[in-house]
């Protein structure tokens, strides 16, 4: 196992010709994502900051994207790896649509696919440096799950990544209940994000 400490350029992954193909450190990172299930579906919030180390460098990074017809993906961690994941999922959804039959990939399927991808990358010692939150609704069924950089995955009624786990989840554990209305859910998320803004150094005050 060789560890080459050469500098990787931002927002791109080196090609196979170079020796250091392994992601060693994240460079441009996003901070926490918080999500919860409410009465009619899923609510997810993330700020729009991309930090370059300790500098809050980018202030309009979209860290949440819709996937297919049914799901929403939010990511914290290395932004370029998130964009790579989006490319994988784009291809996945494209092939799914090309079947042109009545079936479509729901949030559960996408979540499991991502778990496989993350786990396989970590097995090759080349992880995608992200913690992902995947939520969606299909046929009235709500689904909310998370996958970490090393492939740990689980589903729950409310999830968060990074600092959100320490700061936001206690609030959610206290105040979450089934059948939250949309307004209550938004208010709860806003409360979480405000706490994160106060206490997380890498949070910015612009939310998605």
């Amino acid at each position, binding site marked *: 196992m060789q560890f080459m400490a050469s500098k990787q350029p931002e927002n791109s992954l080196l090609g196979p010709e170079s020796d250091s193909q392994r992601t060693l450190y994240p460079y441009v990172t996003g901070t926490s994502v918080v999500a919860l299930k409410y009465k009619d579906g899923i609510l997810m919030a993330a700020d729009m900051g991309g930090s370059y180390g300790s500098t809050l460098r980018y202030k309009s990074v979209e860290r949440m994207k819709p996937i297919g017809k049914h799901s929403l993906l939010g990511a914290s961690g290395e932004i370029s790896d998130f964009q790579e994941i989006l490319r994988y999922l784009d291809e996945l959804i494209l092939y799914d649509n090309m*079947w042109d*039959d009545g079936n479509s990939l729901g949030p559960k399927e996408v979540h499991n696919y991502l778990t*496989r991808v993350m786990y396989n990358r970590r097995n090759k010692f080349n992880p995608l440096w992200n913690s992902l939150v995947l939520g969606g609704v299909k046929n009235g069924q709500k689904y909310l799950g998370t996958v970490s950089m090393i492939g740990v995955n689980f589903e729950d009624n409310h999830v968060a990544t990074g600092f959100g786990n320490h700061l936001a989840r206690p609030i959610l554990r206290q105040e979450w209940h089934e059948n939250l209305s949309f307004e209550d859910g938004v208010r709860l998320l806003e409360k979480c994000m405000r706490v994160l803004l106060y206490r997380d150094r890498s949070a910015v005050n612009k939310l998605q």
Partner: protein
Amino acid sequence: MFRNQYDTDVTTWSPAGRLFQVEYAMEAVKQGSAAIGLRSKTHVVLGCVNKANSELSSHQKKIFKVDDHIGVAIAGLTADGRVLSRYMRNECINYSFTYESPLPVGRLVVQLADKAQVCTQRSWKRPYGVGLLVAGLDESGAHLYYNCPSGNYFEYQAFAIGSRSQAAKTYLERRFENFTDSSRDDLVKDAITAIRETLQGETLKSSICTIAVVGVGEPFHVLDQGTVQQIIDTFEIAAEQEDPATEPDAATGQEAATEQGTAADQGGSTDEGAAPMDI
């Protein structure tokens, strides 16, 4: 179908625009013993006639479980069928592992059809000589598909393939409009009746037919011989009163055979059909 100069290779077209090798492969399907399938909105039933080489040997296995929600009945070259079932099982389990969701039947059928098409367009391959009745459950309901050696696939409400399947098809054509709303048990009875049609006079015993069911809340499984024999017994008695007009000869033949059949089967599963080999 007669031999001609265009039928040596699967890659040779005839002037009439036919691929004879593919058509011969479909003939192989017609020579296999019968298999039938029918579906309602929530269940699909597959049935097949068991052929044994001799009285000493066991039956050919013609119904395969592919996944909890998909099963397949084959007619034709059973070796080809076995290989294709293994492929289908692989595909299902790989999809399940990656997506933790059952593979939609429609997609499996298309993959199977594409695989069959490849064999019709390579000079070093031959078409699969087996027709597959794929029964499965999906988000969009219960489905029954038929895959030909030619690479075509069709969705059916009810279908029969193999030798003497025309009799079964006629029966199914008469009754298919009722199938969508049939109960599961009615569907099984209809399947057994359809199989009886293909036997054309032979005694219907549970040892010569195999029935499998898949439905909502019911994973794919083959019904055991005891259950099948019970169902046969219940309606053989009713059948004499039910259809005396349509099958006068068969009914009288059945009467004598039923008594003999029930007497023989009362002991258990041993009978003159084939050597009992842990069926």
